[in-house]
């Protein structure tokens, strides 16, 4: 975890850290994985991101992957034993095996304004180490700050706070490099809000 308040603390990655992102076509799952890899790279790590396309349709379930390590990454297989899963669309949790291969020390980040119990996922609270399975209302935050229900970048802020695997500062740099200033700024406000909200919960 980051030391309190430091958004630029870079952790050491002892082993490869794998992230799987689930969403639907058009929700930015692929972009989120790419930005995560750029942020991790800017933090000084080796990183890899790649998509697993379904059939390239809006709305179809899609997955994307990101690996972070401190030595060059040669492995090209999908992340089947993730250290973290990010679920952009909570309607997928009962249709796609989004938690496949996730060990008890793994992190779960679900985009939902509802809690795990309400989503019918109370067992996650029992199975995972305390504070590692959470929900964040990223779509609402995106509506508030971006004006559109695009939660992917907002979720990256929550991911940084939840896992400490990337710094918020590097996420900001990755987003500013990718998008026009106004859109980047709006998304980063949402990401910062999610970052703050998750830190508040996990430090409560």
């Amino acid at each position, binding site marked *: 975890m980051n030391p309190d308040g430091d958004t630029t603390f870079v952790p050491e990655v002892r082993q490869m850290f794998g992230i799987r992102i689930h969403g639907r076509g058009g929700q930015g799952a692929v972009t989120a994985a*790419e930005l995560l*890899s*750029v942020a991790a790279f*800017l933090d000084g790590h*080796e990183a*890899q991101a*790649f998509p697993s396309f379904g059939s390239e349709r809006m709305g179809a379930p899609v997955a994307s992957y990101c690996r972070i390590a401190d030595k060059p*990454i*040669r492995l*090209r297989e999908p992340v089947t034993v993730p250290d973290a899963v990010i679920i952009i669309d909570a309607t997928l949790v009962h249709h796609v095996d989004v938690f496949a291969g996730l060990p008890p020390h793994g992190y779960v980040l679900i985009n939902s304004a509802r809690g795990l119990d309400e989503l019918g996922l109370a067992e996650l609270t029992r199975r995972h180490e305390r504070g590692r399975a959470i929900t964040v209302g990223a779509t609402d935050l995106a509506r508030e700050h971006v004006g559109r229900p695009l939660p992917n970048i907002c979720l990256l802020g929550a991911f940084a706070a939840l896992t400490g695997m990337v710094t918020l500062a590097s996420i900001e740099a990755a987003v500013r490099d990718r998008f026009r200033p106004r859109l980047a700024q709006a998304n980063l406000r949402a990401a910062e809000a999610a970052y703050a909200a998750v830190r508040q919960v996990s430090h409560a």
Partner: protein
Amino acid sequence: MRSQMEGSRAIAETVARCRPQVVPAYPITPQTHIVEAVGAMVKDGSLGGCEFITVESEFAAMSAAIGASAAGARTYTATASQGLLYMAEALFNASGLGLPIVMTVANRAIGAPINIWNDHSDAMSQRDCGWVQLYAEDNQAAIGLHVIAFRLAEHLSTPVMVCVDGFVLTHAFEPVELPDRAAIDAYLPPFAPRQLLSPDEPVTIGAMVGPEAFTEVRYLAHHQLMQAVDGFDVLAAEYEAATGHHHRAVSGYHVDGARTVIVALGSVAGTIKDAVDELDGGTGVVTLSLYRPFPADQVRRLVAGADHVIVVERAFAPGAGGVVSADVRGALAGLPARVSTVVAGLGGRAVTKASIQHMLADAHAGRLADLSFLDLRTDVVQRELATPRSR
């Protein structure tokens, strides 16, 4: 300086630094990001002195490339899958005319059934079209192979295909270093065509050749293509001196003293190396950046001491078996090593470290057949084979 970027972007930036003068292209998944990016650079002026031609098909793309190259322009295009097949007739013309066109193939399966995912069926179907074929192991290799490809193509006056695994590499973000423009300019001088198709001094190229000389034309084309076996390594060494990046026609990984050697092309090599590293040793890996012309002597030297050679094939020759295996068997003729063909990752099926380790366990236990399919769903095929078919 390294940066984190998509493979397609890295390829497009590299191609732009090689200063192509004509790029005729038609989009097809998963090649699209490459030509979109090249087109955007032509439009915004960052790739100056280049004409981007939007054509109506891949056949037109290669035909326009042939015209441009014959007229003395450094010419680049990219395609994949059915697009490459649609070019097939023109591919043979490009090589027959000795035109140094460079083309990226974002490797993808071919249909039917339609499949947009990665394997090597497309490029392997055109292995005998007379082009040099290079295969990239990662995106740093994709960058280097493209620069070397332009130099090699123009040095030998022969077209070069750079095969890059679709999605797995083209859509992967990973750290890469783009060679700086000055280094590429020093390495790759402006195109000086051997023969120019020009109204000022009219010539006929590709005229009809009858039985009295056609065999000799083909013999000489083979002789010319074979220059690329040593030529690649010479030019790759120069590229290494200029950029620090190491690429060779054939590379061995832990092959000294290895009893088992896996031979592979393309991005699957990384997963295979990781799989081998976790085992007790005794297994080496040979990767081919150069597949056509086939560097048989180098392959033979690297695997000569092995008892068992396993060729991991990303394509399949129905009715025969392995494509690369046939070349490897030829290279090892007279040696005692057994050669097994393992067809892996067709149509985008993931080739995993665990599957490779399972394959090696089968090999060490003497259970690996001469021809097998990695992770074949035997229940599915057995059920289908047991189903009576109406006549």
